[in-house]
């Protein structure tokens, strides 16, 4: 509050000040109420429902987006694997593959796990296939919903 304001109001009692303020604001409130042109309650309710549904739909779409992303990533991985195998099949011969196999076996011989073993290869293959199948299944389930 400025010094000027304080000086002007100093002669008035609190009751007088309160009366002035109360009267002024009550008149202003009556004016505001007369000016107000709020939309009808039916329109506000309808807009509110539309907005709530829109937000609910956006919320529901989020998990589907995640599943889409996972499926696309799995698909890309699968495609790269197929391309790799195809390229090897076109370029290589059985001798070349055997050479690679032997080289890998000799390199992996020093490892504690036998990654080139028959059972380990089978396990890795089954795991890869399970991941791909699970991703595709998840996509199909959520896409239907």
């Amino acid at each position, binding site marked *: 509050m400025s010094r000027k304001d304080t000086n002007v109001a100093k002669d*008035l009692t609190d009751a007088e000040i309160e009366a002035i303020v109360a009267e002024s604001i009550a008149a202003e409130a009556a004016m505001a109420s007369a000016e107000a042109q709020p939309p009808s309650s039916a329109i506000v309710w309808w807009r509110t429902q539309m907005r709530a549904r829109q937000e609910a739909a956006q919320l529901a779409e989020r998990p589907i987006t995640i599943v889409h992303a996972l499926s696309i990533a799995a698909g890309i991985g699968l495609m790269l694997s197929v391309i790799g195998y195809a390229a090897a099949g076109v370029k290589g011969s059985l001798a070349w593959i055997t050479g690679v196999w032997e080289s890998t076996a000799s390199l992996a011989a020093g490892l504690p796990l036998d990654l080139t073993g028959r059972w380990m290869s089978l396990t890795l293959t089954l795991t890869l296939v399970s991941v791909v199948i699970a991703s595709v299944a998840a996509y199909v389930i959520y896409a239907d919903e």
Partner: protein
Amino acid sequence: MADVTCLDVRRLHADVLDTDAADVALAMDEDAFRAFYDRTSRALWGYLSRTSGDRQVADDLLQECYYRLLKSRVAFESEAHRRNYLYRIATNLVRDARRGTRPLFAEGLDVSDLEAPQGQADVEQRADVRRAMGRLKPRERALLWLAYAQGSSHSEIAGVLGVKTASIKLLLFRARRKLASMLEARS
């Protein structure tokens, strides 16, 4: 038994989903909301327009207030509790709007652009009140409006503005003197 086609099932499913979405999102039913809105919307618009100093802002924020109330998920104990919560939302929205890009509360804001009734003897006096209100701080405007336009108690005002109840008496005293001084100076 009537045949149910695939289309019927899909339509029914869509209806159920729509109903669920509306029920999940909104805490009041339509009749209760419309009655509450009809009782409070004019007064709330007045609060928004006078505390923001901008009728356009009041128009914009009015519906947002009710939307947030419906989405609030608060278990209201009474009509007064719900109304106070609505005013708290309004106060926060006006504060947020003030922080935004639009300069709602420029110092010495002149609110004389608000329409004044034509042909009435007290037009000038009301314009003076609006100008004086425009020169108050936003919290002072809200305080005075809640106290004298809404008739809210100190504890209700404290709840709406987020200040201690014990502070309200002093804050109101200062705001009253400030407004009265500005009105006296003009008269």
